């Protein structure tokens, strides 16, 4: 079946099977920053914005998003700023979890969350195995202007 989705502000027509998962469709259409990390919706590596809100693209059927908007890291201009701060902290390692984390964190900037405990709750679903989170939070606190 065909669906119409706006991806990173571009209107696109995609050919899908009714039971295709959004993550697979996005990768098939070249959005490789969205990745599969776990198959059970736990790791957050597949996070994209659906109508502006972070969702696990591995747990959504592509047909659901017909007529809706998807944003990946490529469609978020603020991503570069956060990426630079993460790089300067040395808070990046293998990079596999980074796009999903950045998408979710950029969304948090809109919410103007200032308390680190709240940030951690909202980011709990972005797992990382390389950095141990500590360096990421040094960078994220800078980016969000979190109160010390």
């Amino acid at each position, binding site marked *: 079946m065909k669906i119409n989705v706006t991806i990173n502000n571009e209107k696109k027509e995609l050919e899908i099977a009714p039971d295709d998962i959004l993550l697979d469709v996005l990768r098939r259409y070249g959005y490789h920053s969205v990745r599969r990390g776990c198959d059970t919706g736990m790791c957050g590596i597949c996070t994209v914005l659906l109508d502006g809100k972070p969702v*696990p693209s591995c747990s959504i059927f592509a047909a*659901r998003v017909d007529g809706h908007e998807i944003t990946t890291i490529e469609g978020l201009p603020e991503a570069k700023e956060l990426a630079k701060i993460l790089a300067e902290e040395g808070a990046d390692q293998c990079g596999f979890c980074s796009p999903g984390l950045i998408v979710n964190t950029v969304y948090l900037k809109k919410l103007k969350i200032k308390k680190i405990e709240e940030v951690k709750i909202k980011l709990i679903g972005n797992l990382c195995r390389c950095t141990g989170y500590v360096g990421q939070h040094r960078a994220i606190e800078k980016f969000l202007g979190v109160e010390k």
Partner: protein
Amino acid sequence: MIKFKEYIKPKTIEDAYNLLTTKNAEIIGGGAFLRLSNRKIDVAIDLIDANLNFTKETNDSVEIGSMVVISEFEENPVLSKLYNGFLKNVSETVLSFQMRNIITVGGTLYPKYGFSDLITALLVLPTEVYLYKSGKFSVEDFLKIRLEHKDILEKIVIKKENLKTSFQYIRNSEYDFSILNVAVSKGNEVKIAVGGRPAVAQLAYKTMQFLHGKDLNEEIIKEAAKMVSEEIPFADDIKASKEYRKKVCEALVKRALLEVM
């Protein structure tokens, strides 16, 4: 992974119901868990366009459509303040923010998942569940009935009362299902619910009866907590043993009751 041949977004709950009962079909709620099953069906029904995404506040109640995602308990101005943020606090402990943006109220309640924290919390609030065909039920009745036919959860209605509330849980990692959870509310009566047993949440009727008409003090609370741990049935599962759940239940009920004392 679940497989199907058609994906349909009906515009009304009536259309959805017709599809559900005339075809080999299932309702896709958030899709989070149904996706993991190995079944083959013909039609996946997505209620996203069926006008079930509403939150209506009146003077004495709040109505929540079954397609409202549970992150709304954190972000929606009405829902996040309900019962002083009780449901917000509970919802924020559920899985991840991304998951809460797709898990729906209907998708949480209808399957009666044992691991659900929200069900435990709703059990101690004056909550009614509206099924499209079978009608209105209190949430505690809804959890007990076995439906003869498929149905669709349309909305829940939570009445506004003057209640003190508390929610306690135990997990190993914070990013996990609860090994056990406890919810308590106190108005004219005290309500105590225990979930993650691992089975779905239950009210502790005997203990609630025991507390009827009594004032809460530390001694009564201790006794009640012990009663709950003896009244509620527990079982082993991959996360914990029956014995552990029983012991921890007593501690959590005690803490919850102390909070609403």
